[in-house]
């Protein structure tokens, strides 16, 4: 079995880690929103596609490399997310969860249709990087390496922000107990806006990175949001670090299943993994039982 050669296994592992880092960045944002406001943003993957199409436009109109587009797109999507929270989500955040599910589902449909109107249903891509980095016997695709590493750096950056800074700790305090956070002097509404802005920016950044490795169309969000749901349940609902682990785990398992069995099976992997994790640990990898 040549599949069992160490180089090939290592290759699959690296590809999986790189893909997983992108999943982690995307799902991390979704879980952050859920942790802070118990809202599941169905439109999260459409925010990702805004980033992807943004990179596409900037590349085709201005010839801008996606790594530079990142510097433009991320702040813009942050601001969009910030006000999106204020205008829409803030109104539904204290209602039953079904309300916010429906509201964000509506937004997702609107964004998809606007995307179709502007970009049609053709697949797009931003082919800026080609070839592979050769490390010994290993060949790591350049676009995948760049996308994976940038995603990893951004996820770690967000983690450090949440772990170390005054505002980041306030985000965690609000996600644990909004009322008590409030009486510590934390303006909960502002933290929610910050959170949504950050999560949207993470999705947007994931979209820019996606644009250099995959082709995409306005309907591409569905696959990703489904994977994200699986990831946040695997990692533990509302737990940011859990989503990072969950994303990376999914990337790696998909890569091995794709290599050993078939890439068609890789689609089902998210759900098999989900069921397996839940059987062993009902609260997810990093989940905490909540009242």
């Amino acid at each position, binding site marked *: 079995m040549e599949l069992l050669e160490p180089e090939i296994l290592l290759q699959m592992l690296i590809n999986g880690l790189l893909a997983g880092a992108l999943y982690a960045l995307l799902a991390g944002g979704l879980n952050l929103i859920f942790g802070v406001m118990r809202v599941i943003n169905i439109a999260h993957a459409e925010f990702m596609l805004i980033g992807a199409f943004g990179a596409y436009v900037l590349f085709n109109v201005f010839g801008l490399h996606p790594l530079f587009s990142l510097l433009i797109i991320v702040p813009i999507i942050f601001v969009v997310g910030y006000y999106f929270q204020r205008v829409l989500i803030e109104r539904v955040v204290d209602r039953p969860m079904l309300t916010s599910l429906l509201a964000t589902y509506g937004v997702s449909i609107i964004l998809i249709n606007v995307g179709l109107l502007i970009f049609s249903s053709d697949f797009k891509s931003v082919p800026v990087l080609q070839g592979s980095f050769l490390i010994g016997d290993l060949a790591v695709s350049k676009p995948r390496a760049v996308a994976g590493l940038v995603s990893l750096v951004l996820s770690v950056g967000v983690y450090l922000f949440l772990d170390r800074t*005054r505002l980041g*700790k*306030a985000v*965690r*305090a609000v996600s*644990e*107990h909004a*009322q*008590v*956070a*409030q*009486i*510590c*002097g*934390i*303006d*909960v509404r502002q933290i929610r806006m910050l959170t949504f802005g950050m999560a949207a920016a993470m999705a947007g950044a994931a979209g820019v990175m996606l644009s250099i490795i995959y082709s995409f169309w306005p309907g591409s969000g569905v696959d990703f949001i489904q994977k994200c749901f699986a990831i946040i349940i695997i990692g533990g609902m509302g737990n940011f670090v859990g989503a990072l682990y969950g994303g990376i785990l999914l990337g790696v398992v998909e890569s091995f299943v794709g290599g050993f069995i078939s890439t068609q099976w890789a689609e089902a992997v998210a759900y098999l993994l989900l069921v397996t994790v839940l059987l062993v640990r009902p609260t997810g990898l990093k989940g*905490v039982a909540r009242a």
Partner: protein
Amino acid sequence: MKEPLLTVHDMEVSYGAVQVLFGVSLEVRAGEIVCIIGPNGAGKSTVIKAVIGLVPAQKGQVEFDGQPITNSPAHEIPALGITYVPQGRIVFAQMTVADNLEMGAFLKRDSHKRREAVQAVFDQFPRLYERRNQPAGKLSGGEQQMLAIGRALMMNPRLVILDEPSLGLSPKYVDLIYEKLLDLKRQGRTLLMVEQNAARALELSDRGYALELGHNRFADTGAKLLANEDVRRMYLGGA
């Protein structure tokens, strides 16, 4: 007699269609310990929550240090010099002890000042210092209550409002908590607290208010309330 530091006048609060406070009034003077007693559901927590902006008051006024603060948003309250220790010693369970304290000083933007305030609380609560890097959820109930009190001291408040600080604690910790409350008074702070452990609380309090179904029922010095036959029968569980 000193000017009151906190005045609550004729406060009414409803949750949805259900009214639970029907014109409650009270005052707290600087340097006092004032206690609100009453049976379950009397509205004790609600009075406090309305004072600090966690629930809206439909009617009535709240004044702090001569300024009207009725229905101020809760996140603006600590800057005024009022902090709160919630019922059920709620701490941020997944955050470390030190980070919990730091959140109590969220309004201090200067990280150096926050660290100083954390250190000052560690000096008062050595046990918290020992456990500073552990998640607060791992602490014992008594330690969590210490942490919740420590968090409320981070802004160097003039008035500390405590909801059932001794509820559910072992006798050893109840003693310790009451000790700390007296310390706070000696530091010149003013305390308003709710207690079910009414006898114990009244012993410590300068004055007390007894609530019943959302109305003021008795108001007097702690000692006189303790001596009052009706209060003993209705609130202290027997003669």
